[in-house]
């Protein structure tokens, strides 16, 4: 028989491993927790409809996952969904005009946020454009001429929420009915 100290050590390790497994099942496999471990910055977007989007859903640009959804809350004032996303630190040069859409992966797949790059326009360039239109010299005094990037706490302004299948069908049916009505009234 083994030394009783060794036996006790093994039993202790076994019990610890068992509870660690239970803990992992609870935290990692089930919906008990939502944690993230990567370095990054958080951006925010408001959607009219965020149905199907989940915490930890991927955030992609050009099909590459750049980050994860970390929080989804409801804004009682504007009745919109506020989706907070964490983007990995290495992708810190996303233009400020980036827009966010909620797409579906595959026919039955889960929802994800797709980012579309927009212009990195800054107040400086806006002023130049404005001046050109008005035919005057641009006044760049005190304006930031560096390109604007998304950073911690940035808000994405252009968004498009999830497309709900029922809504699409309803739209399609109503437009179909409209065109039918039109046809029948035309033939009279």
């Amino acid at each position, binding site marked *: 028989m*083994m030394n*009783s100290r060794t*036996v*006790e050590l*093994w*039993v202790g*390790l*076994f*019990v610890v*491993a*068992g*509870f660690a*497994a*239970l803990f*992992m*099942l*609870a935290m*990692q*496999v*089930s*919906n*008990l*927790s*939502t944690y993230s471990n990567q370095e990054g910055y958080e951006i925010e977007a408001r959607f009219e409809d965020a149905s199907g989007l*989940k*915490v*930890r*859903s*991927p955030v992609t640009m050009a099909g590459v*996952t750049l980050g*994860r959804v970390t929080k989804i809350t409801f804004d009682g004032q504007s009745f919109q969904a506020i989706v907070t996303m964490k983007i990995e630190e290495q992708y810190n040069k996303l233009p400020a005009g980036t827009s966010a859409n909620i797409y579906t*992966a*595959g*026919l*039955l*797949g*889960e929802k994800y946020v797709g980012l579309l790059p927009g212009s990195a326009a800054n107040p400086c360039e806006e002023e130049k454009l404005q001046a050109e239109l008005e035919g005057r010299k641009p006044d760049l005094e005190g304006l930031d001429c560096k390109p604007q990037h998304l950073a911690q706490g940035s808000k994405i302004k252009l968004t498009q929420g999830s497309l709900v299948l029922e809504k699409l069908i309803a739209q399609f049916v109503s437009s179909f009915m409209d065109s039918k009505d039109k046809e029948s009234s035309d033939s009279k």
Partner: protein
Amino acid sequence: MNLDSVRKLGQSGLDFFQRLGRGNILFINILMGIPALLPRFGLLIQQIYSVGVLSLVIIFVSGLFVGMVLGLQGYNTLVKFGAEESLGVVVALSLVRELGPVVTALLFAGRAGSALTAEIGLMKATEQLSAMEMMAVDPVRRVLAPRFLAGFISMPLLAAIFSSVGVLGGYFVGVGLLGVDEGAYWSQMQANVEYEDDILNGVIKSVVFGVVCTWIAVFEGYDAVPTSEGVSRATTRTVVHSALAVLGLDFILTALMFGET
């Protein structure tokens, strides 16, 4: 001639009920013996080592491979529907609800239950148990109760290890080999696996299986005919009866837990 076969039928029926009764009395005696174990914690530790720790390797390896096979099979089916993102849900739910507790219990009966029966049966065959009684040591408390308690404690832990290793195995195959999105694997899993409905019910199942398997093992050993043939038959019965009891109880428990949804 005919009367004789009827008599044999009656005899085997009576035998069955006698064994059932002896089993239940033994179960109650073991339960009564558990409080006396607290001051002698070392006995329990020793048994958890031989029942739980020594089963770790087989549980770990089987869990890994079951998870990997689930990942592979689940992927092949799901990809036809373009739903391979749901692989995590398939792997986790089948492991946590069914395969974790059931396969662990079957392996546990084969690995630890048979060993318990053989050990206790041999103790009986070599009259060690009688010798204990002669020395006014109750063998139920000294030998059976710690083994039973060890099985009761080890089984849920082993099942939890099996399930989580299986989920990791599915992850290695699904995400590592087949290219399912890592975030979809975990996020779909987290979105669809409920803590109370799935994980706690899985734990309850494994506790029940642990009790039944160790009970059968301990009883078969204690009730074995004290010859080498008797011990070998008792060991066989342990494995067969444990497997049947686990599968039958699993159906009942599943019907109770997940039936009315």
